[in-house]
C-alpha cells in the first residue's frame, strides 16, 4: 500500500491509471470497472475498504462495487441510506471527510456504532457527479486515525470521476433518459453478480467473500467481463466454480 503523498508516485500507480483509463474508451463492463477501481483504492490509498454506491432511482443508494463481498461490510454501505457520510455526500454534492468517527457519534449514531464493530475508525465519501447531477458516491474506510492527506483526497476524486465516466459510458449524455438507462444497466449487472455469488457460496459452503473471489478469478482467467461470467452461473451454464 502506498501512502506517499509527494511527487514520488510509483510507476505501478501510473500503470494502473493507464489501464483504467484505457478501459473507459475500449468498451467494458461497468461493474468490472467499478470493481477495479475499488481494488485500486485499496492499493494506492491508506484505506481498508472501499465501495461505490449508486442512485437506484427508487429512492435508495445501492452498492455497485465493494472491495469485499462480506455481508456486514455491504450492509454498512447500505445502512447509509439512513445516515452516514455516503448519504451526506450524495445529498450535498460535496465530499464528506470524517477521519475520526469517534467524534461523529451524535451525527451518525447507527453508522458509527456499526463501523466500530468492523474496526473502522475513519470514513470518507466523495460524490460522483456529471454536470449538475450526482449519481452516487465513492466510500472509503480507514482502520486507523492517520487519515488521508490532501493529495490522497484529490486522488479519491479522480477515482470517483473515473467511476462516473465508467458507468455513464456515452460521452454525449444529452438527456436524462440516457442517464437513467445506464444507471439501471449497471445496477442490474450488479444484481446478477450478487445472485451468482450466492449460488457459488451455497454450492461450496464457503463465505460470500470467497465465492466472489472465485467468480472474479474465473472472469480474469477467461478474460471475460464479470457480468458475462456471472450470467453464465445464474443460467446454469457454469456450475463448477
Amino acid at each position, binding site marked *: 500500500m502506498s501512502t506517499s503523498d509527494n511527487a514520488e508516485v510509483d510507476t505501478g500507480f501510473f500503470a494502473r491509471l493507464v489501464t483504467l483509463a484505457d478501459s473507459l474508451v475500449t468498451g467494458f463492463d461497468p461493474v468490472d470497472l467499478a470493481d477495479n477501481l475499488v481494488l485500486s483504492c485499496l492499493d494506492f490509498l491508506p484505506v*481498508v475498504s472501499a465501495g461505490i454506491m449508486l442512485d437506484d432511482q427508487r429512492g435508495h443508494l445501492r452498492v455497485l462495487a465493494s472491495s469485499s463481498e*462480506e455481508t456486514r461490510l455491504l*450492509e454498512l454501505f447500505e445502512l447509509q441510506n439512513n445516515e452516514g457520510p455516503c448519504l451526506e455526500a450524495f445529498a450535498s454534492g460535496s465530499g464528506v471527510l470524517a477521519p475520526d468517527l469517534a467524534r461523529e457519534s451524535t451525527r451518525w449514531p447507527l453508522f458509527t456504532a456499526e463501523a466500530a464493530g468492523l474496526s473502522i475508525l475513519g470514513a470518507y465519501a466523495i460524490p460522483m457527479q456529471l454536470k449538475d447531477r450526482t449519481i452516487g458516491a465513492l466510500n472509503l474506510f480507514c482502520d486507523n486515525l492517520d487519515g488521508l492527506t490532501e493529495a490522497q483526497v484529490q486522488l479519491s476524486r479522480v477515482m470517483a470521476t473515473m467511476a462516473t465516466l465508467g458507468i455513464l459510458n456515452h460521452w454525449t449524455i444529452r438527456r436524462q433518459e440516457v442517464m437513467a438507462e445506464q444507471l439501471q444497466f449497471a445496477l*442490474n449487472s450488479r444484481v446478477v453478480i450478487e445472485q451468482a455469488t450466492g449460488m457459488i457460496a451455497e454450492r461450496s459452503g464457503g463465505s460470500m467473500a470467497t465465492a466472489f473471489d472465485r467468480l472474479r478469478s474465473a472472469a480474469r482467467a477467461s478474460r471475460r467481463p464479470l457480468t458475462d461470467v456471472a450470467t453464465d452461473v*445464474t*443460467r446454469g451454464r457454469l456450475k463448477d466454480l
Partner: protein
Amino acid sequence: MTVDLTPDEALIASPFPQVVASGTMRGWLVDSVDATRDGPRSEKLVAAICSAVVSTPRYAKIAGVAVSRSWQGQYAGVLFASSPPARELDSLQETLGLGPGPSALREGAPVLVPDLDDDPRARSWVGFVEAVAPLGLSSVYALPIQVGASSLGLLTMHSQATFAMNDEALRDAVQLSDVLAIALLSPQLIDQSAGGSARDSELNKLLDGGHAVTHQAIGMVSVQLGGSVDDALAMLRAHAFATGAALVEVARLVVARELSFQDGEIGPGDPASGAGHADGAKGDDDDVDI
C-alpha cells in the same frame, strides 16, 4: 380507456415456468399456480396497475401502456394493452424483433426514446420506424420487468407527441416496473396484502429496497431448490409474507445459514456446515476480512 385482454393471451407463459423440488415445496408451488389462475390472477393485477398509470396526471401525455410477458429475453405474448395501438406496438416489435422493446429485453435495461425521429439507435431498428408510422406515435418508453438475471416481461408506454419524462416520472416508471414484477411473479401476495394505505407498507416489504443480501440469498435458495432465481424469490417472498418478516430479514437468515429451503423443506439451516457463517448479520465476525 378499454381494457383489451383475452384469457388465452393472459395464460401464455406461467409465472412459475418450472415447478420443481419435492414434498411441501411442490405442494406450495402448485397451490400458488392454481391460485394465480383462478383467483388473484396476474393479468387482473397488471390491468389494474396499468389503468391507474394512464389516469395519473403525471402521465397525462402517455397515450397507451402495454405489458408483455417475456421468456429468455424474447416476447412471450401481450398480457395487457390499454389501447389497440399499444397492443399493435408490442405485436409489431415481437414480429420484427427490433425496436426499443427488443433492445430493452436484450440489454436488461430501459430503452427510453422521447423522440423516434431523433434517436441514434433508431437507425439500427431497420423497418421499425416505418412499421409503426401508421400508429402515429412519437415517443416509446420500454422498461424491462425483471429480477436480476431473470426477465419476466416488458412495460411499454407510448405517446403521440414527443415526450421527455422528467426525473420524477422516470423514477415512477422504474418503480412501476418493480411492482409489475411482483404482480407477474407473486400475484397472490399482492392480493392477500392489506388494502388501502397498509398495502403500501406490505408492498414496500416485498420490494425490499435493493439489498445485496437479498440477491445473495436468492442465489443460495435457487441452488437449494434446484430451480430458477424466480422460484427462489417467490419462495423467499412467500416465507416473508407468511412469517410477517421483511424480505431482507429472511434473506439475512438464509445467508447466515440459519434458514434453508433444502429439497423444498423449510429448515433451520446448518451454520456449522460452512465457513460462510461469519458472513451472517448475526455471525460472530471474528474472522471478518474486509
